[in-house]
């Protein structure tokens, strides 16, 4: 997701429409910036306090102009436009670069049809390989998110409520330091650990615990471990922040009223930490589903994660429309899924940004 590459193949419709579209595309950022500007100017009138300084007065004209243009540019040019371009791209057929804008170019659902049926034309059989990878990716991401949550929750609880300041600092450091090593290196390190002749297998076989080494990578255990590890901190810190702000007396009050420890966690701590839980789970799920390095390096030969398929559409098959369509399907599915889960657990979007 979030491929921000411009198309390698410029398209051209009729010259009039083309210049119109191009003009519009270039105008949009300026329009948006203007809207931001008006909003900023109106801010004071909306404020209850009439003596409050407006956005312009507070920051000075030059600084205000810079902030508005910078934020506007970043939001529009870096995020919205490339994504819109991808959306547009996904509805075109695959053509040689020079033919885009030519007579062959038209809007089509071919790329989406291919994802489902394995053919741009036929609808007789399903694209089992890609569909399976897609479902598996979503399912496994849910699994990774669950694992990550259950792994991080006790640790976050301990750090937030029980650990002394010295131990807390040390734990924080131990958590953060490994993330100075880049993701690829960490994935390869994991591969060395988990390989059939890796450290863990050698140890277990050497100690006589196992007769035969276990193929952690082939069983995808390596991949799941790698994914959970890669996004550990993104689960850890929202949980820690949420639990840390819980008044310790509430835990003791529940205990004093006779609650066993699991009841306290389920009914006092977790409801309170719900925004943090939602925020952590959302990030881990989204990033796992879109992860590329861990599945490629740690994935077994039988596993087919969805993102490498997307990657291959772009760079192996040179099929940019199909790549765009696949990326978009993944993105939308993830968003819809997260929204649905948040609705079920009654968390709103504002809460998780706290």
């Amino acid at each position, binding site marked *: 997701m979030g491929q921000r590459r411009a198309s390698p193949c410029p398209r051209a419709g009729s010259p009039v429409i083309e210049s119109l579209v191009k003009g519009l595309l270039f105008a949009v950022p300026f329009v948006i910036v203007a809207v931001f500007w008006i909003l900023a100017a109106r801010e004071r009138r909306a404020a209850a306090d009439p003596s409050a300084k407006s956005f312009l007065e507070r920051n000075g004209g030059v600084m205000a102009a810079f902030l508005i243009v910078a934020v506007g540019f970043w939001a529009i040019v870096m995020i919205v436009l490339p994504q819109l371009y991808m959306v547009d791209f996904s509805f075109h057929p695959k053509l040689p670069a020079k033919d885009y804008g030519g007579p062959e170019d038209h809007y089509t659902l071919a790329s989406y049809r291919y994802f489902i049926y394995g053919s741009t034309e036929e609808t007789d059989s399903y694209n089992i390989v890609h569909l399976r990878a897609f479902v598996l990716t979503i399912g496994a991401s849910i699994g990774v998110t669950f694992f990550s949550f259950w792994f991080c929750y006790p640790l976050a609880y301990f750090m937030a409520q029980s650990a002394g300041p010295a131990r807390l600092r040390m734990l924080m450091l131990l958590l953060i330091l490994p993330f100075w090593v880049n993701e690829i290196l960490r994935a390869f390190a994991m591969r060395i650990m988990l390989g059939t002749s890796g450290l863990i297998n050698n140890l277990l076989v050497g100690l006589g615990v196992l007769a035969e080494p276990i193929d952690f990578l082939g069983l995808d255990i390596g991949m799941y471990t790698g994914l959970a590890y890669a996004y550990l901190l993104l689960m850890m810190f929202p949980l820690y922040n949420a639990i840390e702000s819980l008044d310790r007396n509430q835990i*003791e009050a529940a*205990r*004093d*009223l006779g609650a*066993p420890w699991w009841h306290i966690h389920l009914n006092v701590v977790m409801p309170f930490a719900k925004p943090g839980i939602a925020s952590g789970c959302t990030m881990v799920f989204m990033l796992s589903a879109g992860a590329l390095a861990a599945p490629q390096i740690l994935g077994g030969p039988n596993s087919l994660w969805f993102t490498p398929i997307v990657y291959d559409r772009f760079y192996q098959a040179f099929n940019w429309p199909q790549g765009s369509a696949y990326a978009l399907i993944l993105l939308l599915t993830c968003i819809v899924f997260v929204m649905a889960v948040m609705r079920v657990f009654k968390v709103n979007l504002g809460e998780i940004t706290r």
Partner: protein
Amino acid sequence: MSADVELDHVWIRFGPFVAVRDATLRIENGEFFSFLGPSGCGKTTILRTISGFLEPSQGTVRIGGQDMRGIGANRRPTALIFQNLALFPLMTVAENIAYGLRVRGVPRAEQRRKVDELLGLTALRDQGTKRIAELSGGQKQRVAIARALAVEPKVLLLDEPLSALDLKLRQHMRNELRAIQQRVGITFIYITHDQGEALTMSDRIAVMNAGMIEQVGDGQTVFDEPTTAFVASFVGENNPFQGKVVAAHDGRVTVDTPVGRLGGRNPRGLKLGDDAILFVRPDALRLGPGAGGDTLSAVVLNVAFEGTMSHVFLKGPTRKDIIITVGRGESQRLPEQGETASIHYGAAAGLALPAGRLASD
């Protein structure tokens, strides 16, 4: 089963720090008992030990005759009301009160009946569906009490629950707490640094200082017959005069103080040459010279009119001023600032105690 709470030579240490020193006392079933002392004296530590959040380093806590060692806070017949109340903010009033019942697996209908009963007892009828954030300070207080009473504890422990309220509400809640205690008839153990709260509500009070229980008695005893210098200076206003005992006979002593020789009662059996502090309450001091030897004179620093009474501050022998309270009815001329006034007190008003640490206020 009776629910007497007994502390038997209880010591509580945190590393090298001794928070509670050899506490031994017995709180009777159905009593309103207060621990009174300045902050840091160990009273909250005692409360947490009774409730089961702390184990004594040494000694035994017994409730209803049963040794509580190894029994966690969730399995003791006590309920604690926290200083900040610690209500569950995401639950309604009714859910808060029902929490302890829910934990115990009490059937829904029974829970509802009990919650209604407690809402009535604590004057919260029709507030059950409200959120905690919608309540006033006094209402939150009552929810905390109802939540604790819901589990039918044998002993209710209260950790300065009124300290967050404003003065008016605090005085109102004192009466209410006392009334609730009399209605439910269980033991209340109350922690406070406010002597007014302790004196008005309690059957008995334990005055604590620096981890030690200095005196246990009912309010009147603690106020009128303090046994240590700390209790005399902490409970109620008092004027201390330090010195050496120069005469002791027939239950009375004479203490040689910087402002002259002063006489007083001698309940602790002070002997000739002992270091002593002679205490006289501000309302027992009278302006003007009196008959006998218990007269002293000092320079008037300030006269403060406070409506029903006036306070006269005189330069004392130490940094602390001598305070005299003059009632409105007493037809005495109030002295002018700067003049030297004579003051005296009745023979029974002076109380000599062994020298010791005073409450610093």
